[in-house]
């Protein structure tokens, strides 16, 4: 046996097409996912240079950012409409499979990849979208790229990439009751900052990680980019294999068993060395709420906004508090919200909706709070309806929508108004993200559901333990 390797090195080495001293490696791309926002200029570039799509069979397209989540037939914004029509035409002209907004496979690109089984361990996966890191949950090397790189992959099925450094994000111990994968990743980013992963690919390790179901792992890997890493992944295990069994794009029967064996062998070897390791103790993680304008500005729900005397970059913190309409040292549970968004590529899968529904069941959304649920895909929506989750949400006063990126970034009509305050299960609390002047607080689906009921932030564990009814 050779030198022990991390899964990152194993995948990288298998995909190098060409290597030259002093130059980035040329890396083969197994799966290219595209959507309407970051692809039009790439196709335009191909046309201008009379180039073809090298492997349409390794390319899959969907519409997610602009799609309406109600009255889907009516796209009011002409430019949105044109962008989606452009994708349709590009897919037709270049022979690419497209799940358009009426297709049963439609959904947020990072929800449908795993759902269809396009996402598999060991693959290199790219998409013109920074949350492509989501697919790393399966032990794939998956990262977001810009439009020039989209064009490069379309034309050559490869990318020039500098070999990343490896970062072990080790989670010690177990998560406490009522603490979720979302709380864990927010706590990791709060602890290590928004750029600790820059230049690295992260691997999340530790028992707490491998005890998570695939949905939780996707939530974690999804937000790797918020810690600065383009890609974050988790070594495949039996949970990974069982999630993929029977999905549309994975092999069947013996061929599957053979694949599964290969997948499991990709896991990081005992004794492999990372360029850097950080450690967090899972037991110290509590339900999180972000208070500021980047994802590291986050505290336990029992905490307060920071004291200006105790922070670095005081000006930036002051700006964030001002934008958010908050004071220093303000208790999180004193913050009242008027919007709740359950959805996005971070937290819109069936299990996320089930967990939120468990909290909502038999309760009502507080008067004056506008609350929406946007399932991550058409298929998630149907499955949820089979389980009656739609009724639970609707009875409580939530709106039950069609799938899409929706209020995570408000490219469609789902916008938080200026000055509005949203408890959101999405991934970014940047200024203006959910609407110009909108204030975003990042939370788990359970915490969002609890906030909908109370009209302010509350420790969801009080609901779960029966302290509150």
């Amino acid at each position: 046996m050779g030198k022990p390797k991390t899964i990152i090195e194993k995948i990288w080495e298998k995909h190098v097409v060409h290597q030259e001293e002093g130059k980035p490696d040329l890396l083969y791309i197994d799966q290219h996912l595209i959507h309407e926002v970051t692809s039009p200029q790439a196709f335009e570039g191909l046309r201008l240079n009379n180039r073809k799509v090298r492997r349409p069979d390794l390319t899959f397209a969907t519409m997610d950012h602009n799609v309406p989540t109600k009255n889907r037939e009516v796209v009011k914004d002409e430019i949105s409409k044109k962008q989606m029509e452009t994708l349709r035409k590009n897919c037709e002209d270049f022979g690419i499979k497209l799940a358009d907004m009426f297709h049963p496979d439609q959904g947020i690109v990072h929800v449908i990849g795993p759902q269809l089984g396009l996402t598999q361990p060991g693959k290199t996966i790219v998409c013109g979208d920074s949350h492509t890191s989501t697919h790393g949950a399966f032990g794939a090397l998956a990262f977001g790229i810009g439009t020039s790189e989209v064009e490069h992959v379309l034309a050559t099925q490869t990318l020039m990439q500098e070999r990343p450094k490896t970062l072990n994000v080790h989670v010690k111990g177990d998560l406490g009751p009522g603490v979720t994968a979302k709380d864990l990743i927010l706590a990791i980013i709060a602890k290590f900052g928004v750029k600790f992963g820059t230049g690295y690919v992260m691997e999340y390790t530790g028992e707490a990680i491998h005890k998570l179901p695939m949905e939780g792992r996707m939530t974690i890997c999804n937000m790797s980019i918020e810690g600065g890493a383009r890609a974050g992944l988790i070594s495949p295990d039996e949970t990974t294999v069982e999630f993929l069994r029977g999905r549309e794009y994975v092999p069947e029967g013996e061929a599957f068993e053979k694949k599964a064996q290969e997948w499991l062998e990709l896991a990081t070897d005992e004794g492999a060395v990372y360029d850097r390791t950080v450690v967090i103790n899972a037991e110290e993680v509590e339900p999180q709420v972000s208070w500021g304008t980047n994802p590291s500005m986050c505290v336990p729900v029992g905490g307060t906004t920071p004291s200006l005397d105790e922070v670095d970059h005081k000006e930036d913190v002051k700006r964030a508090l001002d934008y958010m309409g908050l004071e220093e040292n303000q208790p999180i549970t004193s913050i009242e919200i008027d919007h709740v968004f359950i959805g996005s590529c971070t937290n819109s899968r069936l299990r996320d909706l089930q967990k939120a529904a468990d909290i909502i069941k038999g309760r009502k959304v507080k008067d004056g709070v506008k609350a929406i649920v946007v399932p991550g895909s058409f298929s998630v929506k149907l499955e949820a309806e089979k389980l009656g989750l739609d009724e639970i949400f609707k009875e409580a006063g939530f709106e039950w929508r069609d799938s899409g990126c929706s209020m995570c970034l408000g490219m469609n009509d789902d916008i938080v108004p200026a000055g509005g305050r949203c408890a959101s299960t999405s991934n970014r609390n940047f200024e203006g993200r959910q609407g110009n002047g909108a204030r975003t607080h990042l939370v788990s689906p359970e915490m969002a559901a609890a906030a909908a009921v109370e009209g302010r932030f509350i420790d969801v564990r009080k609901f779960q333990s029966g302290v509150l009814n």
Partner: protein
Amino acid sequence: MEAIKEHKGLVFPLNRTNIDTDQIIPKQFLKRIERTGFGQFVFYNWRFDDNGNKREDFDLNKPQFDGASILLAGENFGCGSSREHAPWALLDYGFRVVIAPSFADIFYNNALKNGIILIKMEESQILEWMKQSEDGAFYLTVDLQKQEIQDQNGGTVDFDIPAYHKEKLLNGWDDIALTLLLDDKIKAYEESTQV
């Protein structure tokens, strides 16, 4: 992309950290299907109020920064979304050089593909230049070949840039054309792995 060897320009200091691509170009402007015309939207929510009027308290709107082409910023510039609309907007507005203590990975690649010179520099040096440039009329000359920045008083500071990135910028290389020269290797890879 256009080759760039040297650039002299007016400096605009933006002393904020973690400037994300949502700030560089907000989502409502991502719907266009062209690469051009994004400059008018750069830093939109900082430059304009809800009615589309220029905010007087944002320095880039002040006449002394008209024509600025070198941007100084805080650490982790360009974090967040992978939208290449961010470098397109900066370039279209007129910025050819961004100097910051650190850049986000995806933004770095995107900017490089568009011929923007990104320079990583010690925060202390950037803060000094920010101070000198806060009232405008402060110029820097970036010599990529020599990896040297000269201020208008004749002071010079060296900078590091990976050799390959430097070559790319100096030559304005088209990565796709370069990669297509390796078509045989790609074919061989596809055959051997049966992908």
